[in-house]
């Protein structure tokens, strides 16, 4: 009895408030159920004798009917748990109905030790079924909510695979397909061979490429480009050594740079005259200088839909290509320090974690 009063008071409280966003009945996921309830309530209203309804009234009534079901379930579950059961039975439901109908009253409610079996509520319902017309629901309702089955990666044991190491127990989830990481290593080996077998630089490269492990297809193409770049210039070592992405960003005036401004056609001669400046040349604006090359590569590729990946891919070959052509562009751009820094910043803004990457490389360099 007490429970029923509390429930009703709670209901009143809920209704008088505006629905909070987090409340179960106001959530977006409940729209389908509420729509079904609306149809059912509308059918019932029609059967009673109404010819129309205001939408607000219909919504209120369907909401209340849904809450009615909910509170019956709540009370029935409570009494089932009180009796030490997990699943409810008829008596729990009758208890719930009596609790909810207690403020209206039913026959025999005043009797203290009445039997649940002969409850007045059930008699009322039986009577109602006899009196009311049979109105089937207008639509076929599919079972809801639909729970999507998630595909799990099975363990080694389920997949009938042998774990790659003895220290890995077979009940752990299996590794992903080897193409996603194993071939990656072989590509790296190739690049190691190409870039004069310098171990330190290949280590650096590995760190650098941790970001795009899964892009196997792109990586293969990358390897191809790299091979071309390496073989045509034969100075892979200088490339990684003077890679602006590996070096810490320079401040203005930190590095001494000769302020040479020359027309493009003379740049080759300049480079021949001052071979020392090759390193410096590598710090020029990469993107501006190699815009045509990037364009050509872009057109040659089937782009992935992810723009970031594409940029990642584009970034690599430009770093490589720059070595040879860097000499040409030396004359075209003045004010290296600031320009370089701007470029780095520009690129860093595209790739959010580039700064971390730079830090890592700094550490590597210290070693």
């Amino acid at each position, binding site marked *: 009895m007490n429970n029923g009063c509390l429930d*009703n008071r709670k*209901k*009143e409280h809920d209704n*008088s408030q505006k629905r909070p966003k987090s409340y179960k009945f106001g959530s977006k996921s409940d729209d389908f*159920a509420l729509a*079904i*309830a609306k149809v*059912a*309530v509308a*059918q*019932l*209203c029609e*059967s009673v*004798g*109404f*010819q*129309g*309804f*205001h*939408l*607000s*009234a*219909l919504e*209120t*009534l369907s909401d*209340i*009917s*849904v809450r*009615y*079901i*909910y*509170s*019956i*379930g*709540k009370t029935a*579950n409570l009494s*089932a748990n009180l009796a030490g059961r*997990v*699943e409810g*039975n*008829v008596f*729990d*439901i009758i208890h719930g*109905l009596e609790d909810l109908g207690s*403020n*209206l009253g039913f026959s025999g409610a005043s009797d203290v030790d009445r*039997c649940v*079996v*002969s409850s007045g509520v*059930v008699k009322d*319902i039986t009577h*109602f*079924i006899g009196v*009311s017309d*049979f109105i*089937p*629901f207008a639509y076929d*309702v599919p079972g*809801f*909510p639909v729970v999507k089955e998630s595909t799990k990666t099975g363990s080694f044991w389920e997949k009938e695979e042998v774990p790659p190491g003895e220290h890995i127990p077979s009940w752990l989830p299996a590794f992903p397909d080897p193409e996603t990481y194993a071939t990656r290593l072989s590509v790296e080996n190739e690049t190691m061979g190409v870039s004069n077998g310098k171990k330190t630089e290949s280590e650096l490269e590995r760190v650098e490429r941790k970001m795009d492990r899964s892009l196997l297809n792109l990586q293969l193409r990358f390897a191809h480009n790299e091979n071309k770049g390496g073989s045509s210039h034969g100075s892979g070592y200088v490339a990684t050594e003077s890679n602006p992405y590996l070096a810490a960003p320079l401040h203005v005036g930190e590095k001494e740079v000769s302020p040479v401004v020359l027309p493009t056609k003379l740049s080759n001669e300049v480079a021949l005259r001052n071979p020392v400046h090759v390193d410096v040349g590598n710090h020029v604006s990469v993107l501006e200088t190699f815009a045509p090359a990037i364009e050509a590569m872009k057109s040659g590729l089937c782009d992935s839909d992810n723009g970031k990946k594409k940029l990642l891919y584009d970034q690599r070959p430009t770093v490589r290509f720059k070595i040879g052509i860097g000499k040409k562009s030396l004359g075209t751009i003045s004010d290296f320090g600031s320009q370089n820094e701007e470029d780095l910043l520009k690129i860093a803004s595209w790739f959010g974690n580039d700064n971390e990457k730079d830090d890592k490389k700094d550490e590597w360099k210290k070693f």
Partner: protein
Amino acid sequence: MNHNPQSSDGKHDDDSALSDFLASLMDYAPTIPDELVEHYLAKSGFQCPDVRLIRLIAVATQKFVAEVASDALQHCKARQAAVVKDKREKQQKVIYLCLLSFLISFGLSDPLLEQDKRLILTMDDLSKSLREYGVNVKHQEYFADSPSTGIDPASREE
């Protein structure tokens, strides 16, 4: 169902009546679909695989809704009867005529005439009938769900 052999005949009758009633629910499909009831019972934490019990709750809800709706219908009819009685006096009032001409110029029909024709479930009647069932619902004053929303309270107060 635990049947006590020492129970009286009346209890035995009730027992069989209840089981008969539950058995009859297998064939009776209530207007409120089983899936809806199952969904909200699952939300409340109640679990029961028995279809009969779910139907029992569905029928109980249906009874509740039908009772509320029929009460609202009575309120609606009573209000309309009152409106019809007062209508002659009201129509002579200038304000009402002004409003009427204003509404007609906008292509809307006379709200009072419209209400005469049809039985419509409104928030006013619903909140009145729900109050008897312990649910306190207030009609939002600003909620314009019909052309007569702004007019009704004023005309009723007169």
